[in-house]
Structure formats: C-alpha cells, structure tokens
C-alpha cells in the first residue's frame, strides 16, 4: 500500500516505515500550522460567520414578511405598503451632541418625541383601518423588524469588512459577540410574533401589576399615553399608573409622575416603581427583588425626570423588580413571570405598611410595554 513512498525510504511492509511516515507528517503539519494556523482560524471564523449571517438574513426577511402581512390584514392599506415599509426599516435616529452635556436630557426627550410621533404617523398612514391599540401594536412590530434589520446590516458590515481586509482581530471581535447577537435576534423574532398578535411580553410585568391594582376602579388619562387610578388600600391613598393598553405602548411615566406630584404640590409620601429587570445567569426567572431608586429602563430621560422631581420634593423612591433575561423581556410572557404579579402586589402591601402611615399618598408605577394588558 505504501509502495509509492519507497523512494523516500518508507516501505509499507514493516511498521517502522509507517512510523516514519506518521512522524514526518506530524513535523510537516506542525510547521504548516506555525505559518498558516491563524489564516486557517480566520477562514473557520469567516465560514461560521457566513452561516450566522445567512440565519440573520432569514430572520429579518421573516420579520419583514410578517410585518407586511399583518399591516395588510389589519390596516387594509389603499396603496402598496412594501416600499414605505422598506424605507421605515432603514430609519435612523441621530442623538444630540454631548460635548456640552448641560440640558441634553430635554434635547434627547424632544428628539425621541419627534421620532415616536413620526413613526406612529407613518404606521397610521400605512394602516388606515387600524384602531389606536392596533396602530401601537403595528408600530412595535415595525420597530422589531427595524431592530432585526439593523442587527443584520451591522453584522454584514463587519463580516464583509473583515473578509475584505483579512483582519483577524476585526473578525475575532465579531466572532466573540456573535452568540449574544444571535440570542437577541432570536428573541426579536419571538417579539415580532407577539407584537403581530398583541400578546403580552415579559417587559409587560409592571403594567400587569398596575392593571391588577386598578381593576374595576375609575381611571383617567394623564401625560402622554398613561392611565391613572386613585383608590384606597390599607388606609393609604394609592395612585396606580401604567401605560395605556392594550396596544403596545410604554407611555411617558416620567412626565406622568411629575404631573401627579405637581398636582399635589409635592405632597406625595412614596413612589414605588414596578419593572422587569435583567437577571444574572443562574438566577430564577420570575424571582422578585426589592431596592431603592427609579426602576425604569430606556435611554434615561424618564428616569431623569422621576429622580429630579422626587429629589426636589424629598420623596423616597422604592423599586420592586421581577427578574428575567433580556430575551425573556421581549418574548411572549412566561408563566413564571405572569404568576409573579400577585407576589409583587403582596410585596407592595408589605412595603406600604412598613414605610408609610395611614392617610399618606403613594404612587405605584407599573413600568414597561403594556402590549396585551388592558386596564
């Protein structure tokens, strides 16, 4: 079998010839890997990444198709919505200059309002037959598709740049974060499905708790898309608030809390914020933690408003959070999260009894996206 190697002195009739062949191959491969090891690693990473990129492309196409299908089904557009949706999926947002940070929160808040209003108007025009809740759901759906499209474009950019420049470290950086990017993309696909059907998502825990508190009680609308209900509990005046549902909406709880405190000339004794928060790996989904401070995510403008108003009036701010992963927060709500709402209410009652006296006023704010949660 090894006759063709006989000119090299390797013969297949004895085991020493085969041993020489194997050791020669070992030496050659060792030298080969010294020179080409990194290149081989680079091509392996590029190959892996091209697979991930194909998967991302499939996901963003699937999300776009779902968006178009849902818009046509619910909104009954009079013109072909595809060119407008394609344009919306490429939309961008320029944040204000932060070289002189004084007053940046209000600039950012204004720009975000402009963006949100424009997005909502665009969706309304695309879906003339949709009611307000459906427009909010469709807006969330378009936002989910936009996020997937952006992830795809960024990954493709670095993949092609790395391939073009053959830069090992450029590809390596992308390779390192790729599992997390893929996890987020998969969660976004789940989120778009939930938005298309109007199902509650993990982030809706805060509004779910507030809706349980304000059930069958009188409600009124306050600052942008927020509903408030005032009632008595254990001898205290409770003001529960949440974004107006059941359409996908986070409202502006910062403005709402500010307005409520101003209406009472600062005579509020406690603010309790309920929100879903990102858990550490290994922690149980649906676990509850108590703390202090304004529990609210986003870009920070709403948190700023609450912190400013609370500190101006010396109002203590407490937070009750329900733990969930970043993926669980945007995917359809899990049973463990939904069931934790009643335990959160027990915690709120405990906190109120421990920290306040009868007759005092407490604001309970359910923070998060209220999709699929009415009031």
């Amino acid at each position, binding site marked *: *079998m090894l006759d063709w190697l006989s000119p090299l002195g390797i013969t*297949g009739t004895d*085991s020493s010839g*085969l041993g020489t062949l*194997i050791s020669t191959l070992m030496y050659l491969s060792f030298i080969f890997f010294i020179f080409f090891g990194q290149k081989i690693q680079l091509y392996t990473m590029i190959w892996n990444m091209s697979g991930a990129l194909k998967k991302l492309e499939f996901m963003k196409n699937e999300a776009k198709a779902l968006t178009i299908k849902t818009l046509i089904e619910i909104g009954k557009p009079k013109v072909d919505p595809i060119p407008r949706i394609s344009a919306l999926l490429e939309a961008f947002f320029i944040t204000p200059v932060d070289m002189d940070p004084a007053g940046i929160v209000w600039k950012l808040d204004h720009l975000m309002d402009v963006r949100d209003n424009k997005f909502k108007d665009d969706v309304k025009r695309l879906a003339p037959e949709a009611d307000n809740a459906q427009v909010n759901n469709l807006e969330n759906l378009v936002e989910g598709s936009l996020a997937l499209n952006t992830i795809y474009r960024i990954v493709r950019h670095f993949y092609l740049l790395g391939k073009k420049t053959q830069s090992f470290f450029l590809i390596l950086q992308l390779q390192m974060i790729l599992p997390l990017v893929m996890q987020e993309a998969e969660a976004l696909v789940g989120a778009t499905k939930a938005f298309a*059907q*109007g*199902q*509650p998502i993990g982030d809706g825990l805060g509004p*779910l708790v507030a*809706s349980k508190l304000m*059930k069958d009680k009188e409600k009124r609308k306050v600052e942008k898309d927020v509903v408030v209900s005032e009632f008595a509990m254990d001898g205290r005046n409770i003001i529960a608030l949440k974004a107006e*549902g*059941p359409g996908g909406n986070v409202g502006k709880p910062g403005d709402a809390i500010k307005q409520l405190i101003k209406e009472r000339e600062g005579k509020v004794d406690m603010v309790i914020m309920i929100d879903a928060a990102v858990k550490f790996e290994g922690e149980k989904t649906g676990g509850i933690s108590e703390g202090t401070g304004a529990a609210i995510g986003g870009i920070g403008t709403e948190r700023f408003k609450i912190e400013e108003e609370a500190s101006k009036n010396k109002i203590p701010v407490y937070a009750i959070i329900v733990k969930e992963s970043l993926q669980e927060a945007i*995917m*359809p*709500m*899990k*049973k*463990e*999260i*939904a*069931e934790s709402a009643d335990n959160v209410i027990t915690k709120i009652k405990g906190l109120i009894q421990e920290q306040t006296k009868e007759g005092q006023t407490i604001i309970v704010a359910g923070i998060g996206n209220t999709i*699929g*949660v*009415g*009031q």
Partner: protein
Amino acid sequence: MEQKKNGLYFYVTVIFSLGVLAYSAWLILGSVLSYNEGQTESFYYSLILGLIGVALSISSLATMRRRIQIIKSQSLKTLTTEICEKCNFKKVREFKAGDYVNKKTEACPQCKADLAISMIYKESPKE
C-alpha cells in the same frame, strides 16, 4: 407537506448517523483485533477511521438533538386564563388574536357573571 418532508429528513439523518456510529464502533473493535494479531498498518487505519466516524456521528446526533429542542420550544402554545371574580371559576384556553388582560369575554357558565382574562402566557417547556 413541508413538515412531512422535514420529518423524513430528520429520521433519515438519525438512522444514517446511527449506522455510521455502529460501523465506526465495529472498525475500532477490528483495530483492537488487528493490534492483537500484530497487523500495525491495519490497526492504524481502522482506529483512525473509526474515531473519525464516531466523532462525526456523535456531532450529527448532537446537532439533531439541539434542533429538536429548538422546534419543541417554538411549538409551545400561548394560553389565556379566564377567571370569574364572583365564583372563582377558571378556564384555560389557547390564545386568540384580540385577547388582552382584563378583557371581559363571556358569561361565567356557573354563575352567569362576567369572565375576564386574568393572564396570558406562553406555556413552559416540559423539564
């Protein structure tokens, strides 16, 4: 139709992987016998081929297992729980478009009061 095709592909892949695994195990056994008989060349060939076969088939079976888990998690249903506040009658059904928490749905079959949606959640995968 597509689902049937995928199912067939799955079974063919699993059967093929198991076949490769069995053949690889037989090759490794053969290599041990060759070693005992002093056939070094045959020993190396069978051992290397056998190990490559075992690695490939195990990798293929592990990939199929991961895919099954993903498919299972995707096929989980979203459930809606309706409750009657008056008599505590509880009804769990599959989610329908238009459902939302606090929506009054129908009359309670026990006491004729309103049933309202109390929870909408995705069922958890079985451990």
